[in-house]
C-alpha cells in the first residue's frame, strides 16, 4: 500500500482536422496530386489553399497519480476528453506528448465480449475473448469452470453464440471480462449500461477489486455510480484536469461547470432588486451541512439544512417561509412550512430573519435536487416572495453499507429513500405451520 499504481505526467493528445474533408481517410489520388504540386513548386495552389488545418487538443497537459488500491473516477461532459484519455491509458492511441506509467498488469474493459465471433461456440469464445483481454491460455484453463458458472450458460457452452439470447450473450461476455486478473483495471462506463442486474454485477466486481488492493480507473458521466464507487474523482473539462479530490467536492464542482449554474447558495446583496415585494425581500438561500458549511453535495445519510434569509421591509404581517423540494425530472417531492412557534402567529417587525429547515438524512434519493422558496401570508393569503429552483444540490451515496441501499450497488427506484427498520426472523418449518394455524386461530 502507498505504492504508486498509475503516474500520468503532462499527457497531451493533438488532432489535426483538415476542414472540408470530413471523411478522415485521404484519397490516394488527392495526396499524390498534392505531392506533385509541391514538387513542382506549386505549393499553395488552388487545391491546397481550400483546405484549412485546425488543431484540437482533446487531452491537454493532464497529470495525476493514483495509489495502489484506489478506485478513481474520471468524469466530465461529452467531449471533455474522458474517452481520449481512457484510450491513451489503454494504449489504443498514442499521446502526442507527455508520459504515463502504470505498475503491474493492466487490464482494460472498454467493451465486453471483445473478439466474440458468432460462429464459434461459447467455449471457443471464452478462450478467444480471454486471450484478447490479455489472459494466458493456462489462466483461462484454470478459471474456465468459474467463468462458465458465473455466466450461467453451462448448458449451451458448446452451442455457437449466434444462437444465444442477447442476455446470455452479455452474461458470457461479461463473465470473461470479470475474470481478468490484473493489478490495474481501466473501465469505461459503456460497461455500466445495459440491464440493471448486469450493471450491478459490474459495479460489485469493481468494488471487489478495489477491496483486494487492485487499482481501478472508472470513466463515467453517471454521477451516482461514480460517487458510490469512488472516493476520489478527477474532473476533466476541455481536455484539462479542473478538479481532483474527494468525490463530494468534485461532483459539486462538476455541477457548476457549464450551463446550469444552480448551486448550493444564492445571495442578493442589493435589496432593491432582490426577489420579493414591498413587505419582504429574499436576501439569501443556502444549503448547509450539519457543520454549518455551505454545500452542493449532500451525503445521503446526513441531516442537512436549507437556510432562508429574509428582510422584512414593512411591519404588520404574519409571514410564513415555505420550501418546495424538487427532484431532477421527477416533479415536486414535498413542501414544508416554517413552523417555528415564536413567529408562527406573530406579525414580524422590520428587520432580518433567518429561518432554517432541517432535512433529515435518509430521506431524499440520490441525484440532483432543487428547492423553490416562497414567503407567504396565510391569512389573508398573499405571496410576498416566490423564487423557483433557487438553490440546487446533489444527494450522493458513497456506498459504505449503512445507507438504505445496504449492499446493493445498482440503480434504485423511487423519489425518496427512507431508511426503514427491518427485522427478519428465521422460522423453522414445523413452527411456521404452527404459526399459520395459530394466526388463523386468533383470526376466528
Amino acid at each position, binding site marked *: 500500500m502507498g505504492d504508486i499504481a498509475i503516474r500520468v505526467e503532462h*499527457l497531451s493528445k493533438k*488532432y489535426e482536422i483538415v476542414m472540408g474533408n470530413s471523411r*478522415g*481517410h*485521404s*484519397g*490516394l*489520388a488527392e*495526396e499524390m496530386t498534392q505531392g506533385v504540386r509541391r514538387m513542382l513548386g506549386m505549393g499553395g495552389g488552388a487545391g491546397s489553399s481550400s483546405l484549412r488545418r485546425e488543431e484540437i487538443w482533446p487531452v491537454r497537459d493532464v497529470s495525476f497519480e493514483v495509489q495502489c488500491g484506489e478506485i478513481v473516477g474520471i468524469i466530465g461532459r461529452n467531449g471533455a476528453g474522458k474517452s481520449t484519455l481512457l*484510450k*491513451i*491509458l*489503454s*494504449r*489504443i*492511441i*498514442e*499521446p*502526442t*506528448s*507527455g*508520459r*504515463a*506509467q*502504470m*505498475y*503491474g*498488469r*493492466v487490464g*482494460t474493459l*472498454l*467493451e465486453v465480449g*471483445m*473478439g466474440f*465471433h458468432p*460462429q*464459434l461456440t461459447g467455449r*471457443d469464445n471464452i*478462450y*478467444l475473448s480471454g*486471450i*484478447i*483481454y*490479455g489472459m*494466458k*491460455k493456462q489462466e483461462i484453463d484454470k478459471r474456465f469452470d468459474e467463468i462458465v458458472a458465473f455466466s450461467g450458460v453451462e448448458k449451451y457452452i458448446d452451442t*455457437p453464440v449466434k444462437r444465444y439470447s442477447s442476455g446470455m450473450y452479455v452474461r458470457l461476455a461479461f463473465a470473461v471480462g470479470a475474470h481478468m486478473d490484473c*493489478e490495474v483495471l481501466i473501465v469505461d462506463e459503456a460497461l455500466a449500461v445495459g440491464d440493471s442486474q448486469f450493471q450491478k454485477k459490474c459495479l460489485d466486481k469493481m468494488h471487489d477489486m478495489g477491496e483486494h488492493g487492485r487499482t481501478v480507473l472508472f470513466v463515467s458521466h453517471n454521477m451516482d455510480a461514480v460517487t458510490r464507487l469512488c472516493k476520489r474523482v478527477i474532473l476533466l473539462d476541455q481536455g484539462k484536469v479542473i478538479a481532483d479530490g474527494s468525490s463530494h467536492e468534485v461532483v459539486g464542482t462538476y455541477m457548476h461547470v457549464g450551463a446550469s449554474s444552480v448551486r448550493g447558495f444564492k445571495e442578493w446583496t442589493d435589496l432593491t432588486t432582490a426577489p420579493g415585494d414591498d413587505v419582504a425581500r429574499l436576501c439569501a438561500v443556502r444549503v448547509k451541512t450539519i457543520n454549518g458549511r455551505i454545500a452542493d453535495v449532500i451525503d445521503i445519510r446526513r441531516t442537512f439544512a436549507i437556510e432562508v434569509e429574509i428582510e422584512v421591509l414593512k411591519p404588520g404581517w404574519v409571514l410564513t417561509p415555505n420550501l418546495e423540494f424538487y427532484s431532477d425530472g421527477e416533479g415536486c417531492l414535498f413542501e414544508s412550512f416554517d413552523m417555528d412557534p415564536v413567529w408562527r402567529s406573530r406579525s414580524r417587525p422590520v428587520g432580518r430573519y433567518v429561518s432554517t429547515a432541517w432535512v433529515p438524512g435518509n430521506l431524499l434519493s440520490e441525484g440532483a435536487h432543487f428547492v423553490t422558496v416562497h414567503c407567504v401570508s396565510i391569512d389573508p393569503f398573499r405571496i410576498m416572495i416566490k423564487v423557483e429552483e433557487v438553490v440546487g444540490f446533489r444527494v450522493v451515496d458513497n456506498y459504505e453499507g449503512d445507507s438504505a441501499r445496504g449492499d446493493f450497488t445498482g440503480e434504485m427506484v423511487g423519489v425518496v429513500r427512507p431508511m426503514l427498520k427491518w427485522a427478519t426472523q428465521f422460522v423453522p418449518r414445523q413452527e411456521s405451520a404452527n404459526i399459520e394455524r395459530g394466526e388463523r386461530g386468533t383470526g376466528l
Partner: protein
Amino acid sequence: MRQSPAVVVIEPSRSWFDLKLKAVWDYRELLYFLAWRDLKARYSQTVMGLAWAVLQPLFMMLVFTVIFSKIARLPSDGIPYPLFAYAALVPWTYFSKSLDRSGFSIVAESNLITKIYFPRLIVPLSATLGGLIDFAIAFLLMVVMMVWFGVFPTWKLMVLPFYLLITILASLAVSLWLSALFVKYRDISALMPILIQIWMFASPIVYPSSMIPQEWQGLYNINPMVGIINGFRWALVGTPAPDPALLALNILTIAVSLLLGMAYFNRRANTFADVI
C-alpha cells in the same frame, strides 16, 4: 501472485525503426487464436469446408492447361503442363490469398483495434499464417497429381520447407505494406485485384522463366515470386535449378521489403485507432 510488477510506459514513440518483436512474442497466443478463429469461422459455415482450398488452384490449373498449353502452346520445361502449372499455383495461391486477406485485415479488425491494445503486427501476421492450412490442403493435391503423372520426389523435396519459409516472409512483407496503407488509403481495395493480376503474369506461373531473355533476368528477379516458384518447381517436379545469384537477389528483395515493411507498419500502427 504478484511478482516484480511490470511497468507499462506510455509515451509518444520516437524511434523511426522499431520492429517490436518482443511484444509480438508476448502475445504469441493471440496470434495463434486469431488464426484459429479465422479458420474455424471460415470453414464452419461452408458445406464443402476445406475442399474449397483445393478447388481454386485446381480450377485455375485446368483453365491454364487448356488456354496456355493447348491453345497458346507455351513450353513447360518438358514437364506435363498440368503439373508444371500446379506446382507454381500452390505457392502463388498462398501468396495472393495472403495479400488479399492480410491487406484488409487491419480494417476488418477495426473493432478490436479501436477497443483494446495488442501489438498490431499480430493481425496481418495471423492472417498470413492462417493461410498455411489452405496451403497444406492444396499441397496434398500436388502429391496426388505427382503420383498420377508418375513423378516421384527426390532429395530436393527436403529443400521445400526453405522455399515455403521465404514464401511466407514474402507474403508478410507485402501484406504489411498493404494493410498499413489501406487504413489510410481506401483506394487500395480497388487497386488490389489489379496488383494481384499483374503480379501473376509477372511471375513464371503459366510460362517458364527461361522464356525471359537473359539480359532481363536481373530486373525480372526483383520479383521474389520468380525465385520462389522456380524453387517449388525444382523441388517438386525437377525443372532446372534456380540460379543461386538470382535466388540471392530474390531473398535480398524480400529481406529489405520485410524489414522496411515492419518498421513502416509499426510507425503507422500508432495511428490506426485515430484514423480507422
